[in-house]
């Protein structure tokens, strides 16, 4: 979706402000939100793409004015309600009033902590051979799906070169909508800065994205 989360190339957000000796969490609740998201995801309540989509669908003013973990919290709460793991009445009451729904991987308990400290695997067997080779010129499609996609707006319509082939991976556009993993070839595609940003762009700049095959046409 063409949401405010798709920020590449936007102006007006001001300077980057690194915080010296930044703590891992600024508030205790932030760590609880992180832990709940990781736990409920690992228990099978949602996949990582669905959780990203719920953050992206926060109203733009809420997205832009909420801190990072506030966005995680708002996305998590809404997602768990919509997926039937809790009800709005329970959220309002602050307590469970109905029994829990079965989780695909069961309750998240201490025995599960170790396994979530290693990243999940997203590579899948290839359902077909790769359409593009390293060195091929490709054009990022001019598509504007209203659902989740990982093709940022700033490259759409532009021509780049395939630089790496990462194999077949879970396709976020499908997975986010719970339509299955639908594995697709994944490539690093590199663009000239001036192709993206015009003649006034930095002539020394190259920008790459990792693009799933359905995002690309031969050029």
């Amino acid at each position: 979706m063409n949401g405010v989360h798709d920020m590449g190339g936007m102006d007006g957000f001001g300077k980057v402000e690194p915080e010296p000796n930044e703590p891992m969490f600024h508030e205790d609740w932030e760590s609880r939100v992180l832990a709940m998201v990781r736990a409920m995801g690992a228990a099978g309540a949602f996949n990582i793409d669905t959780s990203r989509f719920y953050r992206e669908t926060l109203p733009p003013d809420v997205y832009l004015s909420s801190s990072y973990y506030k966005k995680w919290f708002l996305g998590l709460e809404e997602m768990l309600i919509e997926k039937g793991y809790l009800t709005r009445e329970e959220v309002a009451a602050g307590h469970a009033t109905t029994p829990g729904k079965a989780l695909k991987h069961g309750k998240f308990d201490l025995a599960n902590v170790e396994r979530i400290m290693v990243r999940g695997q997203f590579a899948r067997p290839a359902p077909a051979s790769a359409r593009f080779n390293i060195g091929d010129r490709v054009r990022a499609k001019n598509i504007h799906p209203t659902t989740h996609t990982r093709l940022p707006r700033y490259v759409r319509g532009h021509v780049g070169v395939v630089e790496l082939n990462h194999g077949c991976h879970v396709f976020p556009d499908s997975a986010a909508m719970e339509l299955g993993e639908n594995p697709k070839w994944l490539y690093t595609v590199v663009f000239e800065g001036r192709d993206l940003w015009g003649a006034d762009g930095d002539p020394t700049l190259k920008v790459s994205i990792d693009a799933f095959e359905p995002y690309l046409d031969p050029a």
Partner: protein
Amino acid sequence: MSHDHDHHHHHDHHHSELSETELRVRALETILTEKGYVEPAALDAIIQAYETKIGPHNGARVVAKAWTDPAFKKALLEDGSKAIGTLGHVSRVGDHLVVVENTSQRHNMVVCTLCSCYPWEMLGLPPVWYKASPYRSRAVKDPRGVLADFDVTLPKDMEIRVWDSTAETRFLVLPMRPAGTEGWSEEQLADLVTRDSMIGTGFPRTPGAPS
């Protein structure tokens, strides 16, 4: 982010908003616990694991090893996850880590314009600035302007390559080894490797500079 808003006249309002969030977070945890989805002790353990097991020290060890061991460096650039998997003392990194090398001709910088993708196992949880709008919006269009915010300047003709982490691949920058470190041990070198030097928004410390 609370600290990068400039709304001092809304200070009281902001505080009540924060405590409201805290109450809502606690309520959600209560509900998840009562419904039998999570064990609070397991949530504590997740937080503790993040606080102790991951962090830039992992990435720094990998970089220092690459600086001293050409065979490892070659393997690292070919397949980051596989090469790091051979180091017993570094957190398991999972799949799809791509290590990109800075040279005298090219500087690499990593961003996630769409959300906050970041090599957690190598660098820990991302800092607020990495996840915030200014960095996500500008890194792909004006990386030299972004670097200026970090007091970093590159030679005018140096190529700058920005890697937008739009999939489950993760990127780690292998910075250039500082001059004057000939004969240094891996441990000594690792102390020079900063988090930002592995994101591409900084350089390693130089010998003698305060750590």
